[in-house]
């Protein structure tokens, strides 16, 4: 039992509750408290990271109920990595929102903090049903956040997003029911023990349940047949919300890694490596689809929304290889791409504010204000996203390319990933040259002044790509260790033997 584990959940919970009752307090007080809460989440995530770095599993059993009977939180290297990634991103997105995006809705900070709480539960939980609850918590907050900001622009994408996710939740419940009816447990460690023992007719039930789970996670991750809701919804969301949503698809990727490596991994008997044959081609087609979408994008935010889909395809292709090296490379790329995409969403918002009525559309317009600063930020982000040296996207992609063993997988992955990177580079160059260079004479109306907080937060997220390069050695060691820990499933199932408080007396 380690009580630090609940810190990333309790802090946003308390902060969110305080915000709920402070809707009419002065906005500066609300902002200070909200930002302080997010900073505390970063601190607690970093503490958990330093705890997890020794490679052992730590659990927190709610109500001191011995797993698998109670719900447990489990901290390992992967959870800690996801927590830190999310909280660092969140603090910059939150800082950006203080520049004025949080106005117009008294509950913006509440929703933002509850969203973080849902994300943190999802990353820490060791129980399949609790994962469902976490998804619902983060989704209902995200419904509110997606609709944040005035106007009628977001109604239709919001409706699509909500309906699709409600159907996803229904499928999740059916899958959970099928798995429970056979195994009698939903604790992930216990499932990893019991799934290999399933035989006969029950096997089909578990298999059907597991494949339906993959459908749900693929919907969250925006894998190809289930990705068409994403570009419109993300492109129209308010900038800090879109930046935070860069993590949302990664939750789906995280769930796939967690469930399909631990429960349906190599030791799962008849169900070993379930679904991975499907995941690999689908991931590559998703990547190709994302690139096509990026090439055809008519606005900067749509372009970046398609970049989210490109990253998901790249990540899942590496995960579907089912090797330790592939997983390690995927985790490295995950860190890089999430921060870069979030930074690009923020930069696109800044650009849009400086271009008057042209907004973020990729069209010629009068010369924007602050062009040098914004174009440099956009170029850094684009270089990192497309995967050019010397920024972090390049190292992530090289690691993924190096991780694949020679064979048909290698041919497909190399071909699609390299072609995709090249074409997305064209998409970024086209967008950048039209927006920054091809200007016409005329004067801009309704530009907004460039505030310090917003440019600092956008710049900082983009600058993280340089930080990743500087820390590439230690980071890669950490992701290697994470991948090794994930594939050592026997160690995970040992948490069932953890003594509870008072038991050893």
């Amino acid at each position: 039992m380690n009580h630090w584990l609940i810190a990333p959940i309790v802090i946003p919970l308390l902060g969110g509750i305080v915000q709920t009752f402070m809707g009419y307090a002065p906005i500066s007080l609300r902002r200070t408290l909200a930002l302080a809460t997010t900073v505390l989440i970063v601190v607690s995530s970093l503490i958990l990271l330093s705890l997890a770095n020794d490679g052992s599993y730590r659990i927190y059993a709610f109500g001191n109920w011995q797993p698998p009977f109670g719900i447990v939180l489990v901290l390992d290297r992967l959870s800690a990595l996801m927590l830190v990634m999310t909280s660092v991103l969140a603090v910059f997105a939150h800082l950006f929102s203080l520049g004025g995006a949080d106005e117009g809705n008294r509950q913006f900070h509440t929703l933002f903090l509850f969203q973080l709480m849902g994300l943190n539960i999802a990353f820490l939980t060791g129980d399949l049903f609790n994962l469902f609850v976490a998804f619902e918590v983060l989704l209902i907050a995200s419904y509110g956040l997606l609709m944040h900001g005035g106007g009628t622009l977001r109604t239709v994408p919001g409706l699509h997003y909500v309906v699709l996710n409600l159907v996803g939740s229904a499928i999740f419940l059916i899958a959970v029911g099928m798995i429970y009816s056979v195994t009698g447990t939903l604790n992930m460690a216990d499932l990893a023990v019991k799934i290999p023992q399933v035989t006969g007719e029950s096997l089909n039930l578990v298999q059907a349940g597991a494949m339906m789970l993959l459908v749900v996670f693929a919907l969250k991750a925006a894998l190809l047949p289930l990705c068409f809701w994403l570009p419109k919804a993300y492109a129209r969301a308010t900038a800090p919300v879109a930046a935070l949503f860069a993590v949302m698809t990664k939750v789906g990727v995280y769930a796939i890694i967690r469930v399909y490596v631990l429960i349906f991994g190599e030791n799962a008997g008849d169900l070993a490596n379930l679904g991975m044959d499907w995941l690999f081609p689908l991931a590559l087609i998703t990547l190709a689809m994302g690139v096509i979408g990026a090439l055809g994008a008519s606005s900067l935010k749509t372009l970046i929304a398609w970049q989210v889909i490109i990253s998901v395809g790249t990540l899942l292709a590496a995960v579907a290889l089912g090797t330790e090296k592939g997983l390690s490379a995927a985790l490295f790329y995950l860190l890089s791409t999430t921060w870069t995409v979030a930074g690009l969403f923020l930069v696109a918002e800044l650009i849009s504010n400086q271009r008057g009525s042209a907004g973020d559309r990729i069209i010629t317009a009068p010369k924007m204000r602050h062009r040098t600063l914004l174009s440099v930020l956009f170029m850094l982000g684009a270089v990192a996203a497309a995967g050019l040296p010397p920024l972090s996207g390049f190292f992530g992609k090289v690691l993924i390319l190096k991780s694949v063993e020679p064979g048909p997988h290698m041919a497909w992955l190399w071909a699609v990933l390299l072609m995709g990177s090249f074409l997305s580079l064209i998409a970024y160059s086209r967008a950048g040259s039209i927006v920054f260079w091809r200007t016409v004479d005329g004067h801009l109306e309704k530009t907004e002044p460039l505030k310090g907080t917003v440019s600092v937060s956008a710049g900082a997220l983009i600058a993280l790509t340089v930080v990743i390069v500087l820390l590439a050695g230690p980071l890669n060691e950490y992701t290697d260790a994470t991948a090794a820990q994930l594939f050592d499933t026997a160690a995970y199932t040992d948490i069932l033997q953890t003594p509870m408080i008072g038991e050893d007396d």
Partner: protein
Amino acid sequence: MELIFALVIGSLTASGVYLLLRARTFPVVMGLTLLSYGVNLFLFASGRLSTGQQPIIGSTDLYADPLPQALVLTAIVIGFAMTAFVVVLSLRNLADNEDDHVDGCPPEQPADSTQEQEETGK
């Protein structure tokens, strides 16, 4: 009992999915509701169907599994909140777009093309 239960779940889910695929928001909301009913019953059945049994292992030969009941309660609460939200969102969609189509406005009507043909014919 099993057969009736299965038929009820099946018909609820089938009607739910059918209604979900409609183009207007009201049938979609109805479909989501029916689907969640079907799912809740299904989840309940995953603990096996038994009547008049105690939820305690060892007290009788057959026992009622209490866990799916807890799961169903959670799912009902969440489903209820989500339905309320989607109803409000549908109303917002109706107010914003003056149309209850799920895409905000119906796709191009075939009637338009016939109109065009008539115009070119003239």
